[in-house]
């Protein structure tokens, strides 16, 4: 597998302090890194100028789902063979990318998803309050997507070109995670879960999604169900 065929898509919104360090190792490993600046109001765009990445910018803020979709579209246009979703805030370790790609490269699956609940050492890293919410999220996710996963809200994903080109994310904000899984289930793509760690830093903790946001996402999904 040639790392230059792997496009790592990063949606960034106001991550100027950490974006360079979050992606340094990924860039070093030779992957194609695509950063989509989702209308940041801080110095994120400036920070990107000196990084060896493909850079795209949304003139207005659309949301993480839209930014990922833009990045994936770009990657597919450049002939990407594999597409990876990766966070901009340093929560994801670069080594996770290899783990995610393994089932795709061996042909075991077309979609692989990171999970924090497959190994005890990963599980223990998660703050207790989050753990319960995530456990519940697994069941809500099953209700909406038909997929029973161990980690329903993990931003680490890898897709083959074929899978990625069949997914068109329309939920701009956070409901994209569920929308993606629903499509994957509908297309019978049988995703594989891969153990991954998340590094919780004070920076990322403070930026984390609140429980209210989760309620918002569920409402979003219900509306989609009714109208689409």
């Amino acid at each position: 597998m040639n790392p230059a065929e792997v496009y790592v898509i990063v949606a960034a919104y106001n991550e100027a302090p950490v974006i360079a360090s979050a992606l340094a190792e990924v860039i070093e490993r030779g992957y194609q890194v695509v950063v989509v600046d989702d209308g940041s109001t801080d110095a994120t765009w400036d920070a990107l100028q000196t990084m060896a990445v493909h850079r795209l910018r949304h003139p207005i803020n659309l949301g993480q789902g839209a930014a990922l979709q833009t990045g994936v579209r770009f990657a597919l246009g450049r002939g990407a063979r594999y597409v990876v979703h990766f966070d901009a805030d340093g929560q994801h370790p670069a080594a996770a990318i290899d783990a995610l790609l393994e089932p795709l490269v061996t042909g075991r699956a077309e979609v692989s998803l990171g999970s924090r609940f497959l190994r005890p050492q990963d599980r223990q890293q998660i703050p207790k309050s989050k753990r319960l919410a995530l456990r519940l999220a697994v069941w809500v996710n099953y209700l909406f997507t038909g997929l029973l996963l161990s980690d329903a809200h993990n931003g680490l994903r890898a897709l083959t070109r074929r899978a990625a080109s069949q997914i068109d994310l329309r939920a701009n904000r956070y409901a994209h995670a569920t929308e993606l899984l629903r499509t994957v289930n509908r297309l019978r793509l049988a995703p594989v879960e891969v153990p991954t760690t998340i590094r919780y830093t004070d920076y990322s903790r403070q930026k984390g999604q609140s429980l209210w946001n989760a309620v918002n996402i569920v409402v979003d999904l219900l509306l989609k169900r009714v109208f689409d």
Partner: protein
Amino acid sequence: MKPIQPLLLLMLSIALLLYMRFLSSQLWGRIAVLIGFFAGASLIMAPEQANRLAALFGVGRGADLLLYIGIAVVLQLLIRIFVTLRSHERQLTLLTRHVALHEASSPEPKD
């Protein structure tokens, strides 16, 4: 003639004028609105007719019937507005994506 009648007629006429001036562009829409105007105007001027009409639908008063119809119309308009808003949001997304893709820049090749 009750004082409310010319007042309602005035409000209805202003609504008609504003609609014709700012919101309408197609013939059938205009015809529909004109019919609505005349129906509304006649009910305003002859409220007893409204009572008869209401009785047909099993509603007590003509005023009540008009209220119910008014609510239904407003709800429908509201929903139309939301649908339009959503479609605008989608268009905005596609437009922003188009701009982002076209202005994309890549790192200098290292050789």
